[in-house]
Each structure stands twice: as C-alpha cells, then as structure tokens.
C-alpha cells in the first residue's frame, strides 16, 4: 500500500518537473530567437542614416532635406567618412528603392528607414532691376539663396540692397559687388535698391527655385 502511494507521488513529481522543463525551455528559446542578434548592424545602420540626414551634414541643406546634387555625388568612401561605423561593412543606401550607393551584398543586414525630402534646384532665374526707374524684383516663396550683382553706372552710387525690408548689402561708399544673400523661405521677398536719385546702373538678382520631393531613405548595413 505504502509503495503504491509513493509511486503516485513519483509520477506526479515527474509530470510536474517535465512540465516545468518544457515551459522553461520554451521561454528560453523564445527569448533567444527574439534577441537582437545584430546590435552592431543596427547601430551602424542607425548611425549612417542619422549622419546622412543631419542638419549639418554635407549631404543636406537642412535637417531631413537632402541636396539632390550632393546625394548624386555620394560614394562608398564619402559615406565612410561621414559615418565611421560603416567602415568595412557592406551597405546599401536607397531612396524610394532606387539605389544611391551600394557596396557589397547587404541583403542580410539591418535596415533603417527615414523620411526625407530631396531638394533639387531649377536652372538659374535672372531678374534685373532698373536702377534709374527704381524698380523692384519679387522672389517667390521658398527661395532661400539669391545672388545679387550690383553694377552701378558711371558717377552713380548704389548704397543698399534690401530684401523684404531688411538690409542685406550696404556700403556707404557705394556697392560694386557680387554677393550671395540669404532670404526667408516662408514668404515672398521683394528686393529693392537704395540709391541716390538720378543714379543709373544695373542690378541683377539670380536665384534657383528649390523643388522638394518627399522620399523614403533606406539604409541597410551588414557588418
């Protein structure tokens, strides 16, 4: 009788232990398979993507706005200089699926996606200001840079150039220059000349209108 009680207890004990082992192994297996096996790849991909879209990166005009020409010039060694974690790794950088830079097979690496705009610029648009008539030039919204060439006529002095009421160029002795001025992108800008009456000469304003396109940047790194 006693032996039989012990047998029941033993069977119960074995069932319990087996159950616990199965549960434990399942847990361990799930934890291992979920684990981040490629922390280096992830770090490198994140770093490359971060550096590519940073506001002060050579590839951008501002944060998350890639300059189309800089992106076109990108190659593997430039990416390495920009983001050292990519050194010696296989990587692929693409915009909306179109490869930009590719080195080696990075298929099994970790992919990081970022939302960016790509800024390309139109051909230069040139507008002239007739100094003697005191005309102005209106630059549309969105333009952040303009080149102003001041060429005063003989015996006349052009002292100031204003953009949207702000003085961007000034010389008390008279301007005769070729300068790049920064403009506000958030409103149209009127460029106006401050010259003495009867002044002659030519002022040309040249700008390139930016075209922004929304894209998805994907960076895959396989170290």
């Amino acid at each position, binding site marked *: 009788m006693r032996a039989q009680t012990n047998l029941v207890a033993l069977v119960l*004990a074995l069932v319990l232990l087996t159950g616990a082992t199965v549960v434990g192994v399942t847990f361990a297996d799930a934890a291992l398979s*979920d684990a981040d096996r490629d922390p280096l790849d992830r770090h490198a991909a994140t770093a490359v993507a971060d550096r590519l879209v940073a506001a002060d990166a050579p590839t951008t005009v501002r944060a998350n706005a890639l300059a189309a020409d800089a992106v076109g010039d990108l190659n593997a060694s430039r990416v390495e200089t920009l983001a050292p974690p990519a050194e010696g790794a296989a990587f692929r950088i693409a915009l909306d699926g179109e490869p930009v830079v590719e080195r080696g097979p990075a298929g099994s690496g970790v992919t990081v996606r970022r*939302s960016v705009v790509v800024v390309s610029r139109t051909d230069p648009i040139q507008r002239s200001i007739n100094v003697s008539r005191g005309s102005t030039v209106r630059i549309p919204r969105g333009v952040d840079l303009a080149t102003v060439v001041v060429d005063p006529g003989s015996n006349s002095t052009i002292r100031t150039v204003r953009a949207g009421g702000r003085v961007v160029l000034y010389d008390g002795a008279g301007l005769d220059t070729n300068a790049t001025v920064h403009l506000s992108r958030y409103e149209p800008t009127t460029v106006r000349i401050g010259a003495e009456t009867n002044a002659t000469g030519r002022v040309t304003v040249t700008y390139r209108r930016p075209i922004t396109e*929304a894209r998805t940047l994907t960076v895959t790194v396989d170290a």
Partner: protein
Amino acid sequence: MPRGQLSLSIIEAVVGVVLVLGVAAGFVVGVSGSPSSTPQLDTLARDTATVLGSEPTESGRDSRLAALARSDRAFEQVRTPTRERIERLLPADVVFEVRTPRGTFGYPRSPTAAVGSVTVPTRYGPVTIRVWYG
C-alpha cells in the same frame, strides 16, 4: 510518517520546478529583448515633424506645422495638402494621425498596434504626430 504530511517526492519535485523555472527566468531577464519597432516609429514620426516644421505653406508665413495649430481656418486650409505630404513622406506600410489644438486628422488607430509619436511645440500650441504600421 504521520498522515497528511506531503510525500517526499512531491517536495523534491517542487524544488526541481523552482530550479528549472529559475534557469528559464535567467534567460528571459538576461537576454536583451528584441529590438522593438517603437524606436523606428519614433524616428519616422520625428522625421515627419522635422520636414513639416521646415516647409512653408502655399500662403501665409508659417511652416505647415505651425499653420495646423494657428487657427481653425488655417487648419482647414492646410489639412488636405499636409495629409498628402505625410502620405508621400512615410513608407507605404506606415500610417499616421496628427493631433493639433484645432482638430485631428489621419487614420483611425488600431488599438493593439505599437505607436511611435512625437510632440512638437509650436507658438500656437503642441502638435502631435503618431505613426504605426498599418
């Protein structure tokens, strides 16, 4: 052995179970968790906010983000172009919702999804962008 006392085998088994579960718990705690999708989604939300915050609207002097919070009229004007802009910005499998003091637009949220979000202060109030895999 008085009646009512637990069988020694059962006690041994309980000790064994504790041991095995202890080892299993070690795996659960010790192994670093899977990289959750939330940091990735947070990054996408932040990217969207950065782009919208540095983009002028068709009219007016604000960025798209500030125009959304400025007034009810500005919100109505900017909502549709902003929605289209965000749709083009985000990858195809990611959907979004934008909350402003003037109203909310975007996709209806599925309650179980992991959500990445960012709140940007503008001079007219905070704007929150939430994104998740749709």
